[in-house]
Protein backbone atom coordinates (compact mmCIF):
# COMPACT_ATOMS: atom_id res chain seq x y z
CA UNK A 1 0.00 0.00 0.00
CA UNK A 2 1.02 3.54 -0.55
CA UNK A 3 0.42 6.67 1.37
CA UNK A 4 -0.20 9.79 -0.64
CA UNK A 5 0.33 13.06 1.14
CA UNK A 6 -0.70 16.18 -0.72
CA UNK A 7 -0.11 19.74 0.43
CA UNK A 8 -2.63 21.91 -1.39
CA UNK A 9 -4.15 25.38 -1.32
CA UNK A 10 -7.07 25.43 1.11
CA UNK A 11 -9.73 26.52 -1.35
CA UNK A 12 -8.86 23.55 -3.59
CA UNK A 13 -9.95 20.95 -1.04
CA UNK A 14 -13.44 20.53 -2.41
CA UNK A 15 -12.15 20.03 -5.94
CA UNK A 16 -9.57 17.50 -4.81
CA UNK A 17 -12.17 15.62 -2.83
CA UNK A 18 -14.40 15.40 -5.86
CA UNK A 19 -11.59 14.37 -8.15
CA UNK A 20 -10.64 11.59 -5.75
CA UNK A 21 -14.23 10.48 -5.49
CA UNK A 22 -14.30 10.18 -9.27
CA UNK A 23 -11.38 7.76 -9.24
CA UNK A 24 -13.17 5.80 -6.55
CA UNK A 25 -11.38 6.87 -3.41
CA UNK A 26 -13.60 6.71 -0.39
CA UNK A 27 -11.40 7.66 2.49
CA UNK A 28 -8.96 10.39 3.38
CA UNK A 29 -7.80 12.47 6.28
CA UNK A 30 -7.13 16.18 6.10
CA UNK A 31 -5.18 18.51 8.37
CA UNK A 32 -4.76 22.25 8.52
CA UNK A 33 -1.08 23.05 8.10
CA UNK A 34 1.14 26.01 7.36
CA UNK A 35 3.52 25.91 4.45
CA UNK A 36 6.84 27.54 3.80
CA UNK A 37 8.20 27.46 0.28
CA UNK A 38 9.00 29.36 -2.85
CA UNK A 39 5.71 31.18 -2.59
CA UNK A 40 6.95 33.90 -0.34
CA UNK A 41 4.66 35.13 2.42
CA UNK A 42 3.37 38.65 2.40
CA UNK A 43 4.38 41.62 4.43
CA UNK A 44 1.78 42.92 6.81
CA UNK A 45 1.66 45.89 9.14
CA UNK A 46 0.47 45.93 12.70
CA UNK A 47 0.39 49.19 14.56
CA UNK A 48 3.00 50.65 12.31
CA UNK A 49 5.52 47.82 12.30
CA UNK A 50 6.04 45.55 9.34
CA UNK A 51 6.27 41.83 9.71
CA UNK A 52 6.45 38.96 7.30
CA UNK A 53 4.04 36.12 7.32
CA UNK A 54 6.29 33.29 6.16
CA UNK A 55 3.90 30.46 6.78
CA UNK A 56 0.90 30.33 4.54
CA UNK A 57 -2.22 28.31 5.25
CA UNK A 58 -2.34 25.01 3.40
CA UNK A 59 -4.30 21.79 3.67
CA UNK A 60 -2.66 18.41 3.92
CA UNK A 61 -4.63 15.54 2.42
CA UNK A 62 -3.50 12.06 3.39
CA UNK A 63 -4.74 8.83 1.95
CA UNK A 64 -3.60 5.27 2.05
CA UNK A 65 -4.32 3.31 -1.04
CA UNK A 66 -3.51 0.08 -2.84
CA UNK A 67 -0.26 0.22 -4.80
CA UNK A 68 -1.86 -0.01 -8.20
CA UNK A 69 -4.24 2.85 -7.62
CA UNK A 70 -1.65 5.25 -6.24
CA UNK A 71 -0.64 6.76 -9.54
CA UNK A 72 -4.18 7.48 -10.64
CA UNK A 73 -4.95 9.08 -7.31
CA UNK A 74 -1.83 11.24 -7.40
CA UNK A 75 -2.70 12.33 -10.88
CA UNK A 76 -6.24 13.20 -9.91
CA UNK A 77 -4.97 15.32 -7.06
CA UNK A 78 -2.42 17.11 -9.17
CA UNK A 79 -5.00 17.94 -11.79
CA UNK A 80 -7.60 19.13 -9.35
CA UNK A 81 -5.24 21.17 -7.19
CA UNK A 82 -3.40 23.00 -9.91
CA UNK A 83 -3.90 26.72 -10.44
CA UNK A 84 -0.58 27.15 -12.20
CA UNK A 85 0.49 29.78 -9.72
CA UNK A 86 3.34 29.38 -7.30
CA UNK A 87 2.42 27.70 -4.05
CA UNK A 88 0.17 25.05 -5.52
CA UNK A 89 1.89 22.47 -3.34
CA UNK A 90 3.35 18.99 -3.54
CA UNK A 91 2.38 15.36 -3.57
CA UNK A 92 4.54 12.86 -1.71
CA UNK A 93 4.24 9.10 -1.99
CA UNK A 94 5.64 6.59 0.48
CA UNK A 95 5.15 2.96 1.45
CA UNK A 96 2.75 1.69 4.06
CA UNK A 97 3.33 -1.76 5.48
CA UNK A 98 0.06 -2.47 7.14
CA UNK A 99 -3.41 -1.03 7.52
CA UNK A 100 -6.04 -2.04 10.04
CA UNK A 101 -9.68 -1.05 10.15
CA UNK A 102 -10.38 -0.49 13.83
CA UNK A 103 -14.06 -1.37 13.62
CA UNK A 104 -13.55 -4.81 12.08
CA UNK A 105 -9.86 -5.53 12.53
CA UNK A 106 -9.69 -6.19 8.80
CA UNK A 107 -6.12 -5.87 7.65
CA UNK A 108 -4.32 -4.86 4.50
CA UNK A 109 -6.00 -3.42 1.46
CA UNK A 110 -9.43 -4.51 2.51
CA UNK A 111 -9.08 -2.19 5.49
CA UNK A 112 -8.95 0.90 3.31
Amino acid at each position, binding site marked *: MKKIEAIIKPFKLEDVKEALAEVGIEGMTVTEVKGFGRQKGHTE*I*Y*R*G*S*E*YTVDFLPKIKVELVIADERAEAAAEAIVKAARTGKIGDGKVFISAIEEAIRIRTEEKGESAL
Partner: protein
Amino acid sequence: MRVKHNRSIMTIMKKLLIILGLAATVASMSVLAADPEPVAAAADAVVATVTATTEAVADAATAAPAVSSYEEFTATPAFPKFVVDNLWVLISAALVFIMHAGFATVETGLTQSKNTVNILFKNVFIVCMGVLAYAAWGFNSMYPGDNWTISGIFALGGPIPGSFDPATADGVANLTNAYNPAYTYWTDFIFQAMFAATAATIVSGAVAERIKLGSFMVGATVLVLVGYPITGSWEWGGGWLNSGLDKMFGAEFIDFAGSSLVHAFGGYAALAAVLLLGPRKGKFVGGKVRPILGHSMPLATIGVFLLFLGWFGFNGGSVLSADPAGVSLVFVTTTVAGCAGGLAAAFTSWGVLKKPDLSMTLNGILAGLVGITAGADTTSAWGAVAVGAIAGVLVVFAVLFFDKIKIDDPVGAVSVHGICGNWGTIAVGIFGGGKFMTQLVGTLAVSAFAFFFSLVVFGIVKAVLGLRVSEEEEVEGLDVGEHGMPAYPYFQPVAER
Protein backbone atom coordinates in the same frame (compact mmCIF):
# COMPACT_ATOMS: atom_id res chain seq x y z
CA MET B 1 -14.04 71.61 38.52
CA ARG B 2 -15.42 69.45 41.26
CA VAL B 3 -14.06 71.34 44.22
CA LYS B 4 -16.00 71.27 47.41
CA HIS B 5 -13.76 73.83 49.13
CA ASN B 6 -11.22 76.29 47.83
CA ARG B 7 -7.86 76.91 49.41
CA SER B 8 -5.33 79.54 48.40
CA ILE B 9 -2.04 78.61 46.82
CA MET B 10 0.89 77.48 48.94
CA THR B 11 4.51 78.45 48.71
CA ILE B 12 5.36 74.77 48.46
CA MET B 13 3.90 75.00 45.02
CA LYS B 14 6.96 76.87 43.89
CA LYS B 15 9.18 73.99 44.84
CA LEU B 16 6.97 71.69 42.89
CA LEU B 17 7.25 73.94 39.87
CA ILE B 18 10.97 73.32 39.85
CA ILE B 19 10.42 69.60 39.61
CA LEU B 20 7.94 70.29 36.87
CA GLY B 21 10.51 72.20 34.90
CA LEU B 22 12.60 69.05 34.84
CA ALA B 23 9.62 66.95 34.00
CA ALA B 24 8.83 69.11 31.04
CA THR B 25 11.14 67.03 28.93
CA VAL B 26 8.99 64.01 29.51
CA ALA B 27 6.09 65.77 27.92
CA SER B 28 7.94 66.71 24.77
CA MET B 29 4.76 67.12 22.83
CA SER B 30 4.15 70.57 24.27
CA VAL B 31 5.61 71.94 21.04
CA LEU B 32 2.35 71.04 19.42
CA ALA B 33 0.47 73.75 21.25
CA ALA B 34 0.34 76.86 19.14
CA ASP B 35 -1.32 80.20 19.76
CA PRO B 36 -3.69 79.83 22.66
CA GLU B 37 -6.09 82.68 22.04
CA PRO B 38 -8.02 82.48 18.76
CA VAL B 39 -10.76 79.88 18.85
CA ALA B 40 -11.46 79.96 22.53
CA ALA B 41 -13.06 83.39 22.56
CA ALA B 42 -16.65 82.44 21.79
CA ALA B 43 -16.41 79.31 23.90
CA ASP B 44 -15.30 81.39 26.84
CA ALA B 45 -18.66 83.05 26.93
CA VAL B 46 -20.39 79.69 26.96
CA VAL B 47 -18.51 78.34 29.87
CA ALA B 48 -18.80 81.54 31.81
CA THR B 49 -22.54 81.55 31.57
CA VAL B 50 -23.01 77.86 32.13
CA THR B 51 -20.90 78.15 35.24
CA ALA B 52 -22.78 81.21 36.31
CA THR B 53 -26.02 79.37 35.78
CA THR B 54 -24.96 76.38 37.76
CA GLU B 55 -23.88 78.62 40.54
CA ALA B 56 -27.11 80.59 40.35
CA VAL B 57 -29.10 77.41 40.64
CA ALA B 58 -26.88 76.38 43.48
CA ASP B 59 -27.45 79.68 45.18
CA ALA B 60 -31.17 79.42 44.76
CA ALA B 61 -31.12 75.93 46.14
CA THR B 62 -28.99 76.69 49.12
CA ALA B 63 -30.99 79.82 49.74
CA ALA B 64 -34.01 77.57 50.33
CA PRO B 65 -35.21 77.62 53.92
CA ALA B 66 -33.15 75.20 56.00
CA VAL B 67 -34.88 71.90 56.66
CA SER B 68 -34.50 69.65 59.64
CA SER B 69 -34.92 66.26 57.97
CA TYR B 70 -34.66 64.65 54.60
CA GLU B 71 -38.38 64.20 54.58
CA GLU B 72 -38.90 67.91 54.86
CA PHE B 73 -36.45 68.46 52.08
CA THR B 74 -38.53 66.34 49.75
CA ALA B 75 -41.32 68.89 50.07
CA THR B 76 -39.17 71.87 49.07
CA PRO B 77 -39.45 73.29 45.56
CA ALA B 78 -35.78 72.50 44.95
CA PHE B 79 -36.46 68.79 45.32
CA PRO B 80 -37.64 67.74 41.82
CA LYS B 81 -34.60 69.27 40.13
CA PHE B 82 -32.38 67.74 42.81
CA VAL B 83 -33.86 64.34 42.02
CA VAL B 84 -33.00 64.61 38.32
CA ASP B 85 -29.55 65.98 38.89
CA ASN B 86 -28.75 63.30 41.40
CA LEU B 87 -30.16 60.61 39.13
CA TRP B 88 -28.06 61.71 36.19
CA VAL B 89 -24.86 61.59 38.22
CA LEU B 90 -25.78 58.09 39.39
CA ILE B 91 -26.54 56.92 35.87
CA SER B 92 -23.23 58.43 34.86
CA ALA B 93 -21.53 56.36 37.55
CA ALA B 94 -23.05 53.25 35.99
CA LEU B 95 -21.80 54.37 32.58
CA VAL B 96 -18.30 54.96 33.93
CA PHE B 97 -18.47 51.52 35.50
CA ILE B 98 -19.00 49.94 32.10
CA MET B 99 -15.75 51.56 30.94
CA HIS B 100 -13.98 48.93 33.00
CA ALA B 101 -15.55 46.27 30.81
CA GLY B 102 -14.28 48.32 27.90
CA PHE B 103 -10.74 48.47 29.23
CA ALA B 104 -10.82 44.74 29.94
CA THR B 105 -11.87 43.84 26.41
CA VAL B 106 -9.62 46.33 24.62
CA GLU B 107 -6.60 45.11 26.55
CA THR B 108 -7.53 41.48 26.05
CA GLY B 109 -8.13 41.93 22.35
CA LEU B 110 -4.81 43.67 21.75
CA THR B 111 -2.68 41.06 23.51
CA GLN B 112 -1.96 37.39 23.01
CA SER B 113 -4.42 34.66 23.90
CA LYS B 114 -1.98 33.04 26.30
CA ASN B 115 -2.19 36.06 28.60
CA THR B 116 -5.94 36.57 28.46
CA VAL B 117 -6.99 35.17 31.82
CA ASN B 118 -4.28 37.25 33.42
CA ILE B 119 -5.46 40.49 31.84
CA LEU B 120 -9.09 39.81 32.62
CA PHE B 121 -8.21 38.99 36.19
CA LYS B 122 -6.22 42.18 36.59
CA ASN B 123 -9.05 44.29 35.25
CA VAL B 124 -11.63 42.62 37.43
CA PHE B 125 -9.35 43.00 40.41
CA ILE B 126 -8.77 46.67 39.72
CA VAL B 127 -12.43 47.61 39.72
CA CYS B 128 -13.07 45.73 42.94
CA MET B 129 -9.98 47.00 44.67
CA GLY B 130 -10.34 50.51 43.30
CA VAL B 131 -13.82 51.10 44.65
CA LEU B 132 -12.99 49.70 48.07
CA ALA B 133 -9.68 51.54 48.33
CA TYR B 134 -11.45 54.75 47.45
CA ALA B 135 -14.05 54.08 50.12
CA ALA B 136 -11.45 53.27 52.73
CA TRP B 137 -9.11 56.16 52.05
CA GLY B 138 -9.09 57.83 48.67
CA PHE B 139 -12.31 59.83 48.66
CA ASN B 140 -11.43 61.69 51.81
CA SER B 141 -7.85 62.16 50.71
CA MET B 142 -8.96 63.63 47.39
CA TYR B 143 -11.69 65.86 48.77
CA PRO B 144 -10.29 66.99 52.10
CA GLY B 145 -12.46 70.06 52.48
CA ASP B 146 -10.58 71.98 55.13
CA ASN B 147 -8.65 69.01 56.44
CA TRP B 148 -5.44 69.36 54.48
CA THR B 149 -2.34 67.84 56.00
CA ILE B 150 -0.13 70.00 53.81
CA SER B 151 -2.35 72.76 52.61
CA GLY B 152 -3.34 72.41 48.95
CA ILE B 153 -0.86 69.58 48.44
CA PHE B 154 -1.70 66.56 50.48
CA ALA B 155 -4.42 65.34 52.78
CA LEU B 156 -4.72 62.17 54.77
CA GLY B 157 -7.67 60.02 53.80
CA GLY B 158 -9.90 57.73 55.77
CA PRO B 159 -13.01 55.62 55.46
CA ILE B 160 -16.31 57.04 54.30
CA PRO B 161 -19.14 56.88 56.84
CA GLY B 162 -21.34 53.80 56.85
CA SER B 163 -24.70 55.48 56.99
CA PHE B 164 -26.64 58.67 57.53
CA ASP B 165 -29.88 58.99 59.40
CA PRO B 166 -32.24 60.91 57.12
CA ALA B 167 -34.32 61.97 60.06
CA THR B 168 -31.50 63.96 61.60
CA ALA B 169 -29.29 66.91 60.81
CA ASP B 170 -26.62 64.47 59.70
CA GLY B 171 -28.95 63.18 57.02
CA VAL B 172 -29.83 66.67 55.90
CA ALA B 173 -26.18 67.57 55.73
CA ASN B 174 -25.31 64.67 53.49
CA LEU B 175 -28.43 63.62 51.63
CA THR B 176 -29.83 66.97 50.52
CA ASN B 177 -28.76 70.08 48.69
CA ALA B 178 -27.06 71.13 51.88
CA TYR B 179 -24.30 68.78 50.77
CA ASN B 180 -24.32 69.79 47.13
CA PRO B 181 -26.96 71.55 45.03
CA ALA B 182 -27.26 68.52 42.79
CA TYR B 183 -26.50 65.30 44.60
CA THR B 184 -26.12 63.39 47.83
CA TYR B 185 -22.96 62.31 49.56
CA TRP B 186 -23.46 58.74 48.31
CA THR B 187 -23.82 59.89 44.74
CA ASP B 188 -20.71 61.99 45.01
CA PHE B 189 -18.76 59.09 46.38
CA ILE B 190 -19.87 56.46 43.91
CA PHE B 191 -19.33 58.68 40.88
CA GLN B 192 -15.82 59.54 42.03
CA ALA B 193 -15.08 55.95 43.00
CA MET B 194 -15.80 54.72 39.49
CA PHE B 195 -13.16 57.15 38.22
CA ALA B 196 -10.58 56.10 40.77
CA ALA B 197 -9.79 52.67 39.41
CA THR B 198 -9.33 53.99 35.88
CA ALA B 199 -5.78 55.16 36.43
CA ALA B 200 -4.65 51.69 37.47
CA THR B 201 -6.54 50.11 34.59
CA ILE B 202 -4.59 52.24 32.16
CA VAL B 203 -1.35 50.92 33.67
CA SER B 204 -2.65 47.38 33.37
CA GLY B 205 -2.73 47.53 29.58
CA ALA B 206 0.77 48.94 29.23
CA VAL B 207 2.45 46.36 31.45
CA ALA B 208 0.48 43.44 30.05
CA GLU B 209 2.01 40.09 29.12
CA ARG B 210 5.03 40.24 31.41
CA ILE B 211 4.32 41.70 34.85
CA LYS B 212 4.00 39.45 37.89
CA LEU B 213 0.42 39.34 39.08
CA GLY B 214 1.15 39.95 42.75
CA SER B 215 3.52 42.80 42.02
CA PHE B 216 1.02 44.48 39.79
CA MET B 217 -1.69 44.13 42.37
CA VAL B 218 0.42 45.75 45.06
CA GLY B 219 1.62 48.57 42.82
CA ALA B 220 -1.81 49.29 41.39
CA THR B 221 -3.34 49.37 44.84
CA VAL B 222 -0.85 51.96 46.04
CA LEU B 223 -1.44 54.03 42.91
CA VAL B 224 -5.19 54.10 43.45
CA LEU B 225 -5.08 54.35 47.21
CA VAL B 226 -2.45 57.04 47.58
CA GLY B 227 -1.32 58.48 44.28
CA TYR B 228 -4.46 59.24 42.35
CA PRO B 229 -6.14 61.10 45.22
CA ILE B 230 -3.13 63.37 45.62
CA THR B 231 -3.17 64.91 42.15
CA GLY B 232 -6.94 64.72 42.30
CA SER B 233 -6.91 66.86 45.43
CA TRP B 234 -4.71 69.46 43.75
CA GLU B 235 -7.47 70.34 41.34
CA TRP B 236 -10.85 68.79 42.09
CA GLY B 237 -10.19 68.78 45.80
CA GLY B 238 -9.51 72.50 45.72
CA GLY B 239 -5.73 72.29 46.06
CA TRP B 240 -3.03 74.42 44.57
CA LEU B 241 -3.77 73.69 40.92
CA ASN B 242 -7.35 74.74 41.35
CA SER B 243 -6.72 78.03 43.05
CA GLY B 244 -3.05 78.78 42.78
CA LEU B 245 -2.30 79.58 39.17
CA ASP B 246 -4.51 82.58 38.73
CA LYS B 247 -2.02 85.22 39.86
CA MET B 248 0.84 83.69 37.92
CA PHE B 249 -0.81 83.09 34.56
CA GLY B 250 -4.05 84.99 34.73
CA ALA B 251 -6.28 81.93 34.68
CA GLU B 252 -7.10 78.93 36.77
CA PHE B 253 -6.27 75.44 35.65
CA ILE B 254 -9.18 73.68 33.93
CA ASP B 255 -9.52 69.94 33.69
CA PHE B 256 -13.21 69.33 33.27
CA ALA B 257 -13.42 65.55 33.54
CA GLY B 258 -9.83 64.51 33.82
CA SER B 259 -7.71 64.58 30.65
CA SER B 260 -4.86 65.13 33.10
CA LEU B 261 -6.18 64.04 36.48
CA VAL B 262 -7.33 60.67 35.23
CA HIS B 263 -5.86 59.93 31.81
CA ALA B 264 -2.46 61.59 31.87
CA PHE B 265 -2.07 60.35 35.43
CA GLY B 266 -2.67 56.79 34.25
CA GLY B 267 -0.58 57.22 31.12
CA TYR B 268 2.51 58.53 32.89
CA ALA B 269 2.20 56.07 35.74
CA ALA B 270 2.13 53.42 33.03
CA LEU B 271 5.20 54.89 31.35
CA ALA B 272 7.20 54.62 34.56
CA ALA B 273 6.11 51.02 35.11
CA VAL B 274 6.95 50.11 31.53
CA LEU B 275 10.41 51.62 31.84
CA LEU B 276 11.10 49.56 34.95
CA LEU B 277 9.72 46.45 33.33
CA GLY B 278 11.27 46.49 29.91
CA PRO B 279 9.77 45.34 26.64
CA ARG B 280 8.22 41.94 26.02
CA LYS B 281 10.67 39.30 24.87
CA GLY B 282 10.73 39.30 21.10
CA LYS B 283 9.29 42.75 20.60
CA PHE B 284 12.56 44.43 19.69
CA VAL B 285 15.00 42.09 17.98
CA GLY B 286 18.21 43.39 16.56
CA GLY B 287 17.12 46.99 16.15
CA LYS B 288 13.89 45.95 14.48
CA VAL B 289 10.37 46.08 15.85
CA ARG B 290 8.63 42.73 15.67
CA PRO B 291 4.96 43.32 16.26
CA ILE B 292 3.18 41.00 18.64
CA LEU B 293 -0.32 40.77 17.33
CA GLY B 294 -3.41 41.17 19.45
CA HIS B 295 -5.42 37.99 19.41
CA SER B 296 -8.94 39.24 18.87
CA MET B 297 -9.99 42.33 16.98
CA PRO B 298 -13.69 41.86 17.84
CA LEU B 299 -12.85 42.05 21.54
CA ALA B 300 -10.78 45.18 21.00
CA THR B 301 -13.58 46.80 19.02
CA ILE B 302 -16.29 45.90 21.50
CA GLY B 303 -14.08 47.42 24.15
CA VAL B 304 -13.79 50.73 22.36
CA PHE B 305 -17.55 50.91 21.83
CA LEU B 306 -18.08 50.27 25.54
CA LEU B 307 -15.52 52.91 26.44
CA PHE B 308 -17.20 55.41 24.12
CA LEU B 309 -20.54 54.63 25.75
CA GLY B 310 -19.03 55.05 29.17
CA TRP B 311 -17.59 58.39 28.19
CA PHE B 312 -21.10 59.84 28.00
CA GLY B 313 -21.13 59.31 31.76
CA PHE B 314 -17.49 60.20 32.28
CA ASN B 315 -17.87 63.59 30.63
CA GLY B 316 -21.64 64.03 30.77
CA GLY B 317 -21.74 63.21 34.45
CA SER B 318 -18.89 65.59 35.16
CA VAL B 319 -21.30 68.45 34.56
CA LEU B 320 -22.34 67.29 38.04
CA SER B 321 -25.97 68.05 37.31
CA ALA B 322 -28.42 67.36 34.54
CA ASP B 323 -28.24 70.98 33.39
CA PRO B 324 -29.65 70.77 29.85
CA ALA B 325 -27.33 73.28 28.23
CA GLY B 326 -24.28 71.81 29.91
CA VAL B 327 -24.94 68.11 29.45
CA SER B 328 -26.18 68.40 25.90
CA LEU B 329 -23.14 70.42 24.84
CA VAL B 330 -20.87 67.89 26.52
CA PHE B 331 -22.59 65.03 24.70
CA VAL B 332 -22.00 66.79 21.40
CA THR B 333 -18.39 67.75 22.00
CA THR B 334 -17.54 64.31 23.37
CA THR B 335 -19.13 62.50 20.46
CA VAL B 336 -17.69 64.59 17.67
CA ALA B 337 -14.22 64.55 19.23
CA GLY B 338 -14.26 60.75 19.47
CA CYS B 339 -15.50 60.46 15.89
CA ALA B 340 -12.95 62.95 14.59
CA GLY B 341 -10.19 61.09 16.44
CA GLY B 342 -11.23 57.82 14.82
CA LEU B 343 -11.34 59.23 11.31
CA ALA B 344 -8.08 61.11 11.75
CA ALA B 345 -6.26 58.02 12.98
CA ALA B 346 -7.77 55.88 10.23
CA PHE B 347 -6.64 58.21 7.49
CA THR B 348 -3.28 58.90 9.11
CA SER B 349 -2.53 55.18 9.34
CA TRP B 350 -3.79 54.73 5.80
CA GLY B 351 -1.56 57.48 4.54
CA VAL B 352 1.53 56.82 6.61
CA LEU B 353 1.37 53.06 7.02
CA LYS B 354 -0.27 52.28 3.70
CA LYS B 355 -3.16 50.30 5.20
CA PRO B 356 -6.19 51.47 7.18
CA ASP B 357 -5.22 50.03 10.54
CA LEU B 358 -8.19 49.04 12.72
CA SER B 359 -6.23 49.01 15.96
CA MET B 360 -4.94 52.52 15.26
CA THR B 361 -8.44 53.71 14.41
CA LEU B 362 -9.68 52.34 17.71
CA ASN B 363 -6.82 54.08 19.49
CA GLY B 364 -7.77 57.21 17.58
CA ILE B 365 -11.32 57.18 18.91
CA LEU B 366 -10.01 56.84 22.44
CA ALA B 367 -7.46 59.55 21.75
CA GLY B 368 -10.20 61.92 20.62
CA LEU B 369 -12.25 61.14 23.72
CA VAL B 370 -9.29 61.59 26.04
CA GLY B 371 -8.49 64.80 24.22
CA ILE B 372 -11.87 66.43 24.69
CA THR B 373 -12.22 65.35 28.30
CA ALA B 374 -10.53 68.40 29.77
CA GLY B 375 -12.57 70.87 27.77
CA ALA B 376 -15.80 69.11 26.90
CA ASP B 377 -17.86 71.84 28.53
CA THR B 378 -15.99 74.84 27.17
CA THR B 379 -15.09 73.85 23.64
CA SER B 380 -17.31 74.60 20.67
CA ALA B 381 -18.62 71.73 18.58
CA TRP B 382 -16.18 72.42 15.77
CA GLY B 383 -13.40 73.11 18.25
CA ALA B 384 -14.05 69.62 19.59
CA VAL B 385 -13.72 68.21 16.09
CA ALA B 386 -10.33 69.88 15.86
CA VAL B 387 -9.23 68.69 19.29
CA GLY B 388 -10.28 65.14 18.47
CA ALA B 389 -8.76 65.10 15.02
CA ILE B 390 -5.42 66.37 16.28
CA ALA B 391 -5.50 63.73 19.01
CA GLY B 392 -6.21 61.08 16.37
CA VAL B 393 -3.17 62.09 14.34
CA LEU B 394 -1.04 62.48 17.43
CA VAL B 395 -1.79 59.03 18.75
CA VAL B 396 -0.59 57.32 15.57
CA PHE B 397 2.71 59.10 15.69
CA ALA B 398 3.02 58.58 19.43
CA VAL B 399 2.59 54.82 19.01
CA LEU B 400 5.25 54.81 16.29
CA PHE B 401 7.50 56.99 18.42
CA PHE B 402 7.36 54.77 21.49
CA ASP B 403 8.07 51.75 19.33
CA LYS B 404 11.02 53.57 17.85
CA ILE B 405 12.51 54.37 21.23
CA LYS B 406 11.88 50.77 22.26
CA ILE B 407 9.25 51.43 24.86
CA ASP B 408 6.87 48.51 24.62
CA ASP B 409 3.26 49.38 25.34
CA PRO B 410 1.09 46.56 23.97
CA VAL B 411 -2.14 48.54 23.83
CA GLY B 412 -0.88 52.07 23.28
CA ALA B 413 -1.94 53.23 26.72
CA VAL B 414 0.81 55.79 27.15
CA SER B 415 0.07 57.29 23.75
CA VAL B 416 -3.70 57.37 24.18
CA HIS B 417 -3.96 58.42 27.81
CA GLY B 418 -0.62 60.06 28.49
CA ILE B 419 0.16 62.01 25.34
CA CYS B 420 -3.44 62.75 24.37
CA GLY B 421 -4.26 63.53 27.99
CA ASN B 422 -1.58 66.21 27.84
CA TRP B 423 -2.83 67.40 24.49
CA GLY B 424 -6.42 67.59 25.65
CA THR B 425 -5.52 69.62 28.69
CA ILE B 426 -3.45 72.02 26.69
CA ALA B 427 -6.18 72.21 24.04
CA VAL B 428 -8.41 73.86 26.63
CA GLY B 429 -5.98 76.76 26.39
CA ILE B 430 -6.41 76.81 22.63
CA PHE B 431 -9.97 75.80 21.81
CA GLY B 432 -11.62 75.94 25.20
CA GLY B 433 -12.02 78.24 28.13
CA GLY B 434 -8.51 78.08 29.56
CA LYS B 435 -5.14 79.75 29.28
CA PHE B 436 -2.35 77.97 27.52
CA MET B 437 0.34 78.41 30.17
CA THR B 438 -1.87 77.39 33.06
CA GLN B 439 -2.96 74.32 31.19
CA LEU B 440 0.60 73.42 30.30
CA VAL B 441 1.84 73.79 33.85
CA GLY B 442 -1.11 71.86 35.19
CA THR B 443 -0.79 68.88 32.89
CA LEU B 444 2.97 68.74 33.37
CA ALA B 445 2.58 68.84 37.11
CA VAL B 446 0.12 65.99 37.14
CA SER B 447 2.07 63.94 34.61
CA ALA B 448 5.35 64.45 36.39
CA PHE B 449 3.90 63.52 39.74
CA ALA B 450 2.27 60.41 38.30
CA PHE B 451 5.49 59.40 36.61
CA PHE B 452 7.73 59.81 39.62
CA PHE B 453 5.23 58.44 42.08
CA SER B 454 4.78 55.34 39.94
CA LEU B 455 8.53 55.06 39.45
CA VAL B 456 9.02 54.99 43.21
CA VAL B 457 6.14 52.61 43.88
CA PHE B 458 6.98 50.10 41.18
CA GLY B 459 10.68 50.59 41.92
CA ILE B 460 10.14 49.45 45.48
CA VAL B 461 7.89 46.62 44.35
CA LYS B 462 10.61 45.57 41.91
CA ALA B 463 13.22 45.54 44.64
CA VAL B 464 11.06 43.63 47.07
CA LEU B 465 8.93 41.27 45.00
CA GLY B 466 10.38 41.49 41.54
CA LEU B 467 8.33 42.88 38.67
CA ARG B 468 8.71 40.46 35.84
CA VAL B 469 7.69 36.85 35.35
CA SER B 470 10.37 34.36 34.35
CA GLU B 471 11.32 34.08 30.70
CA GLU B 472 9.82 30.64 30.61
CA GLU B 473 6.52 31.87 31.99
CA GLU B 474 6.49 34.73 29.53
CA VAL B 475 6.96 32.28 26.68
CA GLU B 476 4.32 29.86 27.92
CA GLY B 477 1.91 32.60 28.88
CA LEU B 478 0.83 34.11 32.17
CA ASP B 479 -2.52 32.35 32.08
CA VAL B 480 -1.00 29.01 32.91
CA GLY B 481 1.87 30.52 34.87
CA GLU B 482 -0.08 32.79 37.18
CA HIS B 483 -3.54 31.25 37.11
CA GLY B 484 -3.11 27.64 36.08
CA MET B 485 -5.92 28.12 33.60
CA PRO B 486 -6.07 28.77 29.88
CA ALA B 487 -8.58 31.29 28.50
CA TYR B 488 -9.58 29.15 25.55
CA PRO B 489 -8.99 25.46 26.22
CA TYR B 490 -9.90 24.48 22.67
CA PHE B 491 -8.23 21.13 22.69
CA GLN B 492 -9.36 19.79 26.01
CA PRO B 493 -8.69 16.40 27.43
CA VAL B 494 -11.68 14.87 25.71
CA ALA B 495 -12.04 11.47 27.30
CA GLU B 496 -15.54 10.30 28.06
CA ARG B 497 -17.05 13.45 26.77
